[in-house]
């Protein structure tokens, strides 16, 4: 029953939207259970969609039965399904975590604002993954941005406001660059549909300019070096749940789109030079982000910079995509990287949120000797970091292995070197944090006030996310089989 499966695509988009509307109208105070219901419903819809994609291949759905170009098509292939699933997992976790975090009496107005914003954003993210034409992508991206910015600013202090302002300006600029590119493409091909554009677009000048504009916009939204400047203040000043979704989902959507467009829409333009340029940017953000993370003195900036670093890895696929010997493995690696990073990063930010929540700060130096009180959160943080380091037995490792094998198989040693080096640097900053957490409290300093008691759910959620990364680390085969649905021949 493919139709039912197809039907679950619009549901995956509409359910969170609907929930957001109701929550907005009722007010989160009056219906604290509502977001949970909505999240569960969304997860169910996504699960159904994933099941159908896995069973019957790519699914398409035309809203209201209108055909393109004017109608809106929702399209889910393996990659999209994987993203939907990852988003659903993170979304569920964040929803579960945000409840106690926001409704503890300290965060009223944040609670009021958070739920609608986050639920709309979830819808927009699903839309981004499902959108089948360039303009809908634009709408969804804008929607994501316009919900992400307030999430950054939600606490309303000067640091977060400044970060949000900068984020907004740059994001709007990026969207306009994207839109301009789309306009040029439409002018050239007369269509907006991802695959049709891909078939019609030539290697000519205007197409190249359009691709450049679009890519630039997406790289900025994906916070790829050197367009990452806005990310760190924004992500490290937001409240924990917001940081989690921003780092795990929002920026990754940008990277996802870079891959999507270059592999589906502009493969004709993907010359080795372009591949090396984009891969080089990816490598640069891997190294730069890691090195910066090593120099931070607070926990959340460390995690934020590690986001910059992790976002670079998937781009390493682009130089390899053209090499037959390497493409398939590199592609699996890149896709799995996004999934692994999403889960691990959400877990890390939520765990960091716990630490900050109970200590009232996240200075690394102040973490000495906290392990006993916050052992579970620290454990979750550590487990998540292990995946970011790409060490077994985590999903991060499997992704890294595939990407590395691809790089070696393609005979492109530099990328392999970058991958290995990036792992070591990640180990460097990760263990800098953990060492502080494992360290004994300095004997000379007076006993600190016992940290604030953590609600049980807030303790459990990050740990579960981290453990999920290990579950995916035991075997990537199911996920990668799903990924094959509707993948371009070059990558099959």
């Amino acid at each position: 029953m493919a139709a039912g499966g197809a039907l679950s695509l619009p549901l995956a988009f509409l359910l969170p939207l609907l929930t957001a509307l109701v929550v907005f109208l009722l007010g989160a105070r009056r219906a604290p259970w509502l977001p949970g219901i909505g999240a569960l419903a969304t997860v169910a819809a996504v699960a159904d969609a994933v099941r159908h994609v896995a069973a019957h291949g790519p699914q398409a759905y035309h809203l209201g039965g209108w055909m393109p170009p004017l109608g809106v098509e929702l399209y889910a292939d393996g990659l999209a399904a994987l993203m939907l699933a990852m988003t659903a997992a993170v979304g569920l976790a964040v929803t579960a975590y945000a409840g106690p975090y926001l409704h503890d009496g300290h965060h009223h107005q944040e609670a009021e604002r958070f739920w609608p914003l986050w639920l709309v954003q979830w819808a927009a993210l699903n839309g981004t993954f499902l959108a089948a034409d360039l303009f809908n992508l634009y709408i969804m991206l804008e929607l994501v941005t316009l919900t992400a910015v307030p999430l950054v600013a939600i606490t309303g202090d000067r640091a977060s406001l400044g970060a949000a302002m900068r984020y907004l300006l740059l994001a709007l600029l990026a969207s306009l660059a994207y839109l301009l590119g789309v306009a040029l493409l439409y002018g050239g091909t007369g269509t907006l549909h991802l695959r049709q554009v891909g078939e019609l677009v030539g290697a000519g000048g205007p197409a190249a300019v359009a691709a450049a504009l679009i890519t630039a916009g997406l790289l900025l939204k994906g916070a790829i070096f050197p367009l990452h400047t806005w990310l760190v203040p924004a992500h490290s000043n937001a409240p924990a749940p917001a940081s989690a979704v921003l780092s795990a989902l929002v920026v990754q959507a940008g990277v996802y789109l870079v891959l999507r467009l270059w592999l589906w829409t502009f493969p004709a333009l993907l010359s080795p030079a372009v591949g090396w340029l984009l891969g080089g940017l990816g490598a640069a953000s891997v190294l730069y982000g890691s090195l910066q993370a090593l120099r931070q003195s607070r926990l959340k900036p460390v995690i934020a910079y590690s986001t910059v670093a992790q976002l670079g890895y998937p781009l390493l696929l682009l130089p390899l995509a053209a090499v037959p010997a390497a493409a398939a493995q590199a592609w699996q690696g890149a896709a799995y990287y996004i999934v692994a990073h999403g889960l691990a990063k959400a877990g890390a930010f939520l765990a960091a949120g716990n630490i900050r929540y109970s200590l009232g700060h996240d200075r690394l130096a102040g973490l000495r000797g906290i392990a006993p009180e916050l052992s579970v959160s620290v454990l979750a943080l550590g487990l998540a970091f292990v995946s970011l380091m790409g060490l077994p037995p985590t999903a991060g490792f499997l992704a890294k292995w595939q990407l590395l094998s691809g790089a070696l198989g393609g005979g492109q040693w530099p990328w392999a070197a970058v991958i290995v080096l990036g792992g070591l640097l990640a180990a460097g900053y990760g263990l800098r944090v953990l060492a502080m957490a494992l360290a004994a409290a300095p004997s000379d300093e007076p006993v600190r006030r016992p940290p604030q008691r953590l609600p049980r759910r807030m303790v459990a959620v990050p740990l579960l996310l981290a453990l999920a990364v290990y579950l995916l680390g035991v075997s990537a085969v199911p996920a990668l089989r799903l990924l094959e649905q509707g993948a371009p021949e070059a990558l099959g």
Partner: protein
Amino acid sequence: MTQAGLYTLAASALAGIGVYGLIVRRHLLRRILALNLLGNAVFLLLVALARRHPGYVDPVPHAMVLTGIVVAVSATALALVLARRYYAETGLRHLPEDEG
């Protein structure tokens, strides 16, 4: 000089002004305005595209422009709110990192 060509020319002029303003100006309001200019330039370009085939108007770009304007308006609104909150919070009219 066809009408489309004219539109395109105007669009690029607007875009130039927008980018210039966005880069050179530090005052938040001016930047927001610059962004709007840039957006309008893109819309103008789309409108021009609608007429690239003589004798028939392509509806799709118009649909895009309409939607785009809605998005732009909401984005501008958000930007303005943020700018005001920021000013209220800090007394600054521009982002601190941009000084000097």
